[in-house]
């Protein structure tokens, strides 16, 4: 079995199993922790609407908070869009997903994907420098922040290396690229990358609770 066979075979299967099972375990486990019924008289009963509104309203901070948060918010958007473009709009990825799940969609020109990859890496580097040099962020950072950073960077970096045919024989670099994606999938349920799942329930419960008290969150 070659390294590429391993990456495309058992490694892929096991990483997907860990990704799905781990994610379900963490999500369901957190959601199942007991919740006490609030017996106080609500100011508003439209808590579902309040929850849904906050899921969307927290996509951008309110203007009162712009001066201190805008850089990180914009960098966050660039990073997330960059990742989405490189993962989901690169034609070979679409073919790979088609082979795996039987669903496909049109891609965009490779040059554009590579540009998005470069921007993504540059943003990741900028955010890392900021995290390591700002006293506040240094103080609240943990190993999770740095591991998650590496797990996000490596698939993008190795993918671009494979596309550009640098760093060794194509088959080997491609195998390493696939393995880094699998490492990211394995890490996903255990670290902060899991916010990709939790952003909806955490915002929704805040919005619902605030709505109950008559406050728009």
């Amino acid at each position, binding site marked *: 079995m070659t390294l590429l066979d391993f990456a495309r075979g058992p490694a892929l299967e096991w990483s997907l199993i860990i990704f799905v099972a781990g994610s379900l375990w963490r999500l369901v486990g957190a959601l199942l922790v007991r919740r006490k019924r609030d017996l106080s008289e609500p100011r508003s009963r439209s808590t579902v609407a309040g929850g849904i509104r906050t899921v969307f309203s927290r996509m951008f901070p309110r203007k009162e908070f712009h001066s*201190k948060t805008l850089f990180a918010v914009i960098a966050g958007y660039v990073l997330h869009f960059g990742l989405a473009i490189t993962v989901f709009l690169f034609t070979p990825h679409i073919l790979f997903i088609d082979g795996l799940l039987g669903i496909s969609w049109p891609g965009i020109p490779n040059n554009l994907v590579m540009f998005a990859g470069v921007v993504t890496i540059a943003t990741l580097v900028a955010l890392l420098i900021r995290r390591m040099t700002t006293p506040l962020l240094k*103080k609240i950072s943990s190993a999770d922040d740095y591991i998650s950073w590496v797990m996000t960077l490596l698939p993008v970096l190795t993918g671009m290396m494979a596309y550009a045919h640098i760093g060794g024989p194509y088959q080997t670099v491609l195998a390493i690229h696939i393995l880094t994606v699998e490492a990211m999938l394995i890490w996903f349920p255990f670290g902060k990358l899991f916010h990709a799942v939790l952003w909806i329930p955490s*915002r929704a419960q805040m919005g619902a609770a605030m709505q109950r008290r008559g406050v728009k969150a």
Partner: protein
Amino acid sequence: MTINMEIFQQFAEQLPHLGEHAQPPQMTDAARVETARETFVRKLDGRMAVDLESCIHCGHCASACHFYVGTEDPKYAPIRKLDLLKRVYRRELSPLRWLHRLYTDDITVKDLQEWQELVYDSCTECGRCSMVCPMGINIAGMVNVMRQGMARAGMMPAELMAMEQEQGGHDSLFGVGPEQMKGAIAKLQEAGVDIPLDKHEADVLVTTSVIDIILFTDGLIATARIMNHLGLNWTLRSDGYEAANFGLLSGCERVQKIASEKIVLAARACGAKTVIIPECGHAYPSMRWEAANEHGGKLPFEVLAISEFLGREVKAGRLKLNTLGRDRKVTYHDPCKLARHSGTIEEPRWVLDALGVDFREVDSGRELNWCCGGGAGVFLINSASELRQQAFQVKIKQVEKTGADSVVTACGSCRLNFMNGSMRSNWDKGIESLVELVAEALPTH
């Protein structure tokens, strides 16, 4: 109306000695850790679990915190204040606890000592951090759970411990119990203020607080005048008058329940359909949101903050007011516990509108208002004195921008903190109470 600054000075001079009355429980370090841990586990719920799993360490919460902004010290980052709770959650409750236990340290008594400053001195549980958090984490709610654990472990500031022990053990605050309260009311009655005390039947139970009895007496008189002006069947009862709840502030659940149940029982005894909370920030959520859960069922009355009540009366046309004139340039300070925590936002503005003053809204007001830095008992904590002053500078800057001559508010703690902060900063803005302004504008029949 103004308050007697001499009495305020005397009151302020007593505060540094407040903690001397505390009787810290004798516990071993191991017992303190065990008690704190057990309380954290018992109070952690599903909402907190999702919140604690969600943080992405972006630090936005710090930009919304007056203690961080006032000091720029990263140790005051709001989310960091939850570290001990998070560690206990990860080791005891998280779905990944089998993994987290391998690398997450258990809490120690040294941690508890270090975190006392973070959850008491440097957090007013104002909740502004939650308004910017991209994940919507309820940090203030979990700081309160931290306080509950610390309180049971006997690791709260001596000042709050003394107050909580006085309220829970002697049914008094600052030496004012039911008898002293009755004496104070009798004096006001002799002076011609009509305050119906201990009525057996009343539609409205008005509560007060020790601060109104000993310091802001004008606020109490104003409330009585308004109630009488509206022709309400109301009472103040000596068996359930104290709205301040030092159980809630200190984190002592037992005393919190004792204090709120007194009001529930007094309201039941006179058949009140409405309970009015005075200008006291934390007293409102204590009765409005917490009391039913401690009581174990829906309360048989409506709970209204006095500012909320006044706003409704004005809006419904039942309370007509004289205008005070547009030469009075005022701004309004939304007390965190009334606005951000409880949605009492429009009502005070309806009142200010009816008063016909030149009202100037602050930047970042309403549910996003900056806390004054004195809430959740922080005003009484001596070790928080400098920190509070640094945080208050944020408030000064915000108010200065409005060009108002005075700040109106509807919370006694905010008012005390504004007065103290103004004195120490030589800041010349007037600090006014909403209820007193309304009494000033009552038409004469």
